[in-house]
Structures are given as structure tokens and as C-alpha cells.
């Protein structure tokens, strides 16, 4: 066991933390979604990497092959990717609507607008 042999985990971890950091630190709604995408992608790696066996091949029975990679993580992650795409699409759609409503996609400006309206006419909806 050495650090280098776990390099896939290091990449996973780096992407995970980087993605999460972008989500938290950025005020731009699109950039937040990008961060979220990176965060999700790191999990895809987490699943896929251990499924690969060195020297293993696709799980198709054939002469001369004894070692196969695990196909199940690929299937799972295919599902997760679909979910991720749907989330991203919905998130982007929301951002479009938010821009139509507020004319900005910066979080602090939006909150400022909401706050201003609440203090002007606190009870009107």
C-alpha cells in the first residue's frame, strides 16, 4: 500500500472538495451549478475506479480471459449521470427564470432585492 497506488482516490477527493468549495464560495448561480457538477463527478470516479481490475477486461465470456472488471458500478453510475444531467438541466432552467425575474444571477444582488422589497412593503406578496 502506498499513496501513489491510491492516486484515483486522491483525484476523487480533490474534485470533491473543489466542487464543494465552488458551491459554497461562489455567488454566481451558474458557477454554483458548475461546482455541483464537479462534486457529483467526483463520486462517479469513486464508484468506477474500484471496479477496474488490473488486466481485467469487459465482462464478456470469451476464450483466454479469466479476469473481468466489475460491470455493476458502471451501470449504477450511468443512472447517477442521468440524475446529474437532470439536476443540472433543472438548475439551469431555474437560473433562466431567476434572471427573468431579478435581472441578475448573482446571489447577493438577488437577496438584496428581496430584502429591499420586504423593507419597502413588508406585507405585500
Amino acid at each position: 500500500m502506498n499513496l501513489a497506488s491510491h492516486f484515483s482516490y486522491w483525484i476523487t477527493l480533490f474534485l470533491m472538495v473543489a466542487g464543494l468549495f465552488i458551491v459554497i464560495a461562489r455567488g454566481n448561480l451558474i458557477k454554483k451549478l458548475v461546482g455541483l457538477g464537479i462534486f457529483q463527478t467526483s463520486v462517479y470516479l469513486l464508484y468506477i475506479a474500484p471496479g477496474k481490475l488490473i488486466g481485467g477486461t469487459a465482462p464478456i465470456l470469451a476464450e483466454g480471459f479469466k479476469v473481468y472488471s466489475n460491470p455493476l458500478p458502471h451501470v449504477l453510475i450511468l443512472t447517477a449521470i442521468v440524475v446529474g444531467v437532470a439536476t443540472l438541466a433543472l438548475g439551469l432552467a431555474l437560473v433562466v427564470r431567476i434572471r427573468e425575474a431579478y435581472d441578475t444571477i448573482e446571489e447577493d444582488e438577488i437577496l438584496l432585492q428581496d430584502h429591499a422589497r420586504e423593507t419597502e412593503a413588508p406585507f405585500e406578496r
Partner: protein
Amino acid sequence: MSLASHLPALQVVLPLVAAPLAVLVRHTGAAFLLVTLASWAAFAIAVLLWQQIGSHGTISYALGSWAPPLGIEYRVDRLSAFVLVLVAGIAAVVLPYSRRSIEAEIPREQHYLFYAMFALCLTGLLGIAITGDAFNIFVFLEIASLSTYVLIALGRDRRALMASYQYLIMGTIGATFIVIGVGLLYLKTGTLNLVDMSVRLQEMSNHRPVLAALGFLTVGISLKLALFPLHQWLPNAYAYAPSVVSAFLAATATKVSVYVLLRFYFSVFGESLVFHRLPLPEIMLALSLAAMFAASAIAIFQDDLKRLFAYSSVAQIGYITLGLSFDSVSGLTATVVHLFNHGITKAALFLLIGCAVTVVGGSSLSRLAGLGKVMPLTAFGIVLGGLSLIGVPGTAGFVSKWYLVLAALEKGHWWLALAIVASSLLAVAYVWRFVEIAYFRAPPAGLPVRREAPLSLLVPAWLLIAATIYFGLDTSVTVGSAAGAAAELLGMAK
């Protein structure tokens, strides 16, 4: 095989099929009819399953006849049957209400889409409760969540968009944490079937990845169930969503997440790992107490009734997780019974607020002034629901509180028993804020002298209020099921 043996599959498939059909018909009335019928059928199936559990014990259903643990298993035990009844029941009551309610709150051309999303959300929530496969839980969770984001964004206030977006970010982070947890467990055990997983985990409770998985799952699910302080998405989401959506979500979404937590804690990891290897019960206890006091205190100072009750929900989730942290039959009974009791109470309250919104045009407290005069039935219903939140005897909330205090006393935690009852005094404060505004203030100018909401709104709302009273007096069904589920959870773990 007869149709009856396929009930577990039908439970999920019926609302799932209703969703695309609702989109295809592109007609409000037809979509409404389809989804309502599907939800009633789902409720009937849930009740049938619940009865079958009572007489025959746990049902295991191999989806597509692929035998578990390789295939996906649908597994109905006492706890999942109880949650299924709650979710499907709330949907069945809320849908008839939605017809009139969304007319006032959602543009007409989007109505059929609303019903499609509602059906998907119902599918997801039912799926989470019924499946016995870890990855399947994630998939259903995302089906429910994605449709929920859309439903919230349908709110007429533009702040609903931001609320939905924030929920999307938080919810996705939570879901991703859950996937990480499930992934680690899969790496260790090589299985996704929950029962199989728990068997294989027995020998490796010391392994660090297992503990890491527990941590990721706890945080991810806590985000979904809005455990204090991970609740920030909830108040805005409930406040700006259409009334009927607030009612449905408050009663089901967080409750189903609690179910997932219970499932992983007690059926997968096992009580000894969760409660004795890590200081999880202490953390849970502290966060629950913080939720009960802080969220209730924040609720007192809200100027919008929907936000007020949203914060109250965060506090009530504190009661639910508190019961869990005791790791005893009474405590778990309190948790499970409060899932149900709080679910019907909050749904009723949000439905009644929806009634008020259709007449007075908003849910800010200043608009609700004098509601007791303008809409006596609505206002009185809200008061009754509020009494259940406080835990007045004769209401469902009292039953939950009883078991919670009992569980604290069984552990010898005097101070905790006092803390539980003390926190309900904060509930008195926020409920009485509404009472004083509704009964001691004159209605704002321009409102009719007396105008109740239409019956199609009042009847479902009062049905749930009646249920909160009924389940406060006759607890054989609720406490019986909850105690059975609690014993089963702890028995399975030992």
C-alpha cells in the same frame, strides 16, 4: 401469480405511469382525474399492504422476478408499511384540494404539468419507503427531489424560484453525500441489498470506510430531513411554494427522509455500531434540542404564517430525531408515531393556510388579522392544529410527547423530560401569536365581512384536522403500528 402478490410493484408503478399520461393528455381536468385516481389507488394498496404485514409479516418482492440479493428487492415491513400509508394517505387527501387551490396560485396552462410533477414526487416518496436496495433509495430520492424542486418553483412569488434553487443545491449535496455513503458500503460489502448488506457488515464494524459511510449517510440524510442546523433550505421552500405543495411536503418529504435514516441506522448498520461505537446519540440529542428550542424561538418572531409553521416544522423534526437518539422502544415509538402525527397536523395547517390565502390573498400575519371573524372555520381549524403542535391532550401531538417524555424518564434523564415540555411552551407562544392576531384584531379594510373558503378546500383540510383529534383519542392504530415498528427495528438490530 395473482394481482394481489404484485401489490408492492403496483404501489410505485401506478403513480409512475400516471405522470407521463398526465403530460400526454395535456388537459387539466383529465390530468387531475388521472393523478387523483392513481393516488387513491396507491392509498388503497398501501392500506392493503399494511394489513398483509399485520397478518403475515414482512413481504419481500423480487422486482422483475430477479431474486435478491442480485435483483432489486421491494421489502415491506412494519415501518415501511406505516410510512407508505402516511405518504399515500396525505396525497389522497391533498389532491382533491389541489384543484381549486392551484387555480388561484398557478397559471392555468401549467396545471397538467403540476399534476405530472405531483405524481412523480409521490412515486419517489413511495419508492424510497418500499425499496430494499440502497442505490434504488438514491434513485427514488432524486425522483422525489427533482419533482419537488419544480413544484416549489411553481409558487407565484418570485422568491419561490430562489427557494427552489437553494433547495436544489442543498438537496443535491445531500443526495451526493448519500451516494458516497452507499458507494463506500458497496465497496466494503459488494452488495446493495440492505438485508444482505447488514449481514455482511456484522464482521466489519471496525473498518474505517464503514464508519466513514455512516458519517456521509448521516450528514446527507440530515440535510434531506432538515435537521438543525442543516435546515436552511426548508423555511423558504415551504413559505413560497404553492399552499398545496407546502402541505404535501411538510407531511411527507422530511418524514420519508427520517425513514431512510431509521432504515440505515437500525436495519443496515445496526444499533450497536451506530449507538455504541460513535458519539452519534449525543450529537443527535444536542442537535435535536437545539432544533426544538432555536427553531421554535425563531418561529415566534416570523411575520408570515407559512414561515412560522415552517420553522415549527424544523422544531418538530427535532422531536422526531430526539426520540431516535434514545435508542429505546419508547423513544423509537415516539419517533415513528410523531412522523405520522406531525405529518397530518402540519398538512392540515398548511391546507388551512391555503384556504385563507384564497380569500385574504396572502399569508402574512397582518393580512390574517381578524381571520376569526372573516373565516371562522379556517381560523378555528388552525387553532386546533396549533393545539396539536403544542401537544394538548386530546390531540395527536400529545401522544407523541407522552412517549418522548416517557423515553427520557426511562433513561433517568429528568432534565431532558423538563426540556421537552419546556420547548412546547415555545409552541404555545407561536400558536398564540396567531390566536391573538386572528381574534383580537380587526380585519384589514377591504375584506368581506364573512367569507369562508369553498367546501372543496375546507373539507380535505378539516378531514385532516379531524384526524389529528381522532388519533389523539384513539391511538390503537398509530401507537400500535409505531410500537410494532420500533420493536422490529430494535429486534432486527440485535
